[in-house]
């Protein structure tokens, strides 16, 4: 049997989960990674060819 306290904090947790934007952070990080990787790759080709 859970105490009211525990239920309350669990609710809090779920609620936090519902409001969380961790996935957004990861996704935006993915966007940044694509930009960096593409840029570096083409820059590397440039350096190879000059």
């Amino acid at each position, binding site marked *: 049997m859970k105490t009211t306290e525990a239920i309350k904090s669990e609710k809090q947790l779920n609620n936090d989960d519902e409001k969380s934007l961790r*996935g957004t952070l990861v996704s935006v990080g*993915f966007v940044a990674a*694509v930009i960096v990787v593409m840029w570096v790759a083409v820059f590397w080709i440039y350096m190879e060819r000059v």
Partner: protein
Amino acid sequence: MEQSLKETIRQDPKKILGVNPLDAKVSLSYLTVAFVSLLIGGILGLVQGLERAGLIDLPSWLNYYQVLTAHGLLLLLVFTATFSIGYLYANLSHALGGLLPKVRKFAWVGFVLMIIGVAMAVTMIVLNEASVLYTFYPPLAAHPIFYIGLVFVVLGIWACCAGVFINYRHWRKNHPGQVTPLLAYFTMAVFVLWFFATIGVTIEVFTLIPWSMGLVETTNVMVGRTLFWWFGHTLVNIWYLVAISAWYVFVPKIIGGRHFSDKLIRLVVILVVVLNIPGGFHHQIIDPAISQSIKFLHVFMSLSIAVPSLMTAFAMFAVFERTGRKLGGKGLLGWLKKLPWGDVRFLAPMIAMISFIFGGAGGIVNTSNQLNQVIHNTMWVVGHFHITVGVSVVLTFFGICYWLIPYLAKRKLTPKMNKLGIIQTVIWTVGMIIMSGSMHIVGLLGDPRRTSDTTYGGHEAAAGWIPFEMLFAVGATLLLIGVIIQVYAVFNMMFFAPKGLTEYPVAEPEDDATPAPMWTERWGLWIVLLLAVVAMAYVVPIVDMILNAPPGSPPIRTW
């Protein structure tokens, strides 16, 4: 509280009456032209793909550059412009409670002018009098009627601009102290950009007409290219604004969520409008006659557009995550699974957004000086814009069709049509990944764009491109199948789908959202800022090109 029927009709007539049939007719006419252009342009695209792969030889009465001019013009200009106008006028009508009768007239005048203009330009292309490609760079010279046709197209667009500005002002006058609905706000922004984008190219075309008629002997090539890209670069962001209007306003509703902060959305719109135009020289990075510092300024300005784009990426991810979590998504990325992947109204714009991650990153590559030396005028560029406009923009447009057209035609989207839409979206996506992916890679290997025959006498470097060119043909074939399905779906939903009412899926703000501030409505100020930035970027180089002009060029016909 119960409202009387009369009250409801007055406050929100569309709830009861649906779209005004006269407004629907305007939009449906524009959309019809759009999808006829898509069909013709798509067929030409396949012809190009097959020709480049060496799988077909064009008959003697048709040359590659003629086909390429028509493909570029019909898809890049006619399809995107007519779709955008049909869609945005529907939004305006929906958001402001119907178009003013005067405004509807402007839209029709615009329609007729554009049809006349396109007919003139296309006729000249068909007669092989205008194989100048969609950029019509001087000194390539087309028949004067081609340019006169372009003037008509611009006049048509200006008529549509006037209509939007009039309706917007009318609404503002009657709603003091209120911000305009988001959809009307986007529409206003797009047409402000249309207006200022087309000024430069109109001046260019007016100088080319007497030149092509032989009344003037030479033309200033650098000024022509510069005025073209003032327009061309802005056109890109016109599409972008149209596409994100759907991402911000409709996609959240379709997935069962709320739209992101009204204030942020309007800020993104203002940034794109103000910062946009002075990026044109990133298309001319290897052109002579432009000083390094001016090129640097344009590169900087075009990179500044990444700011609103990244804000959009963040906002959209946040909308998806919030909605997905509300629907029970757990863990780091579990919310993704809760999104309605089986609904074409979501799937198509979602793939459009994902592809913009790669398209946008490619754009940053293109605009960087050294990197541009690697990709300039190669097939990479063609791959780039088939991903950006061909997927990010076009798939968003396709996705919009599945609710907009039934709504306007007072019909319904059937589950069967939804399924066909999903199949279409998948075919388009796979086709573009194959075609645009191989174009990117072979571009890095040096394969030039805008070139019918790239065998170079069997040189080994050129031989290495052939497998990739075969892949263009495979992708192109899938894409034409996609075009045919889409055109079928559009006309089916317009004329044959079962009668019924379709929702206009406009998202609501979050419950605790603060309303957008009134200062966002100060269009006079945004336009002054826009002009200031344009002046900063263009006055010095254009004056320089005119004062220190090299000998001008007579008209040249290479075909």
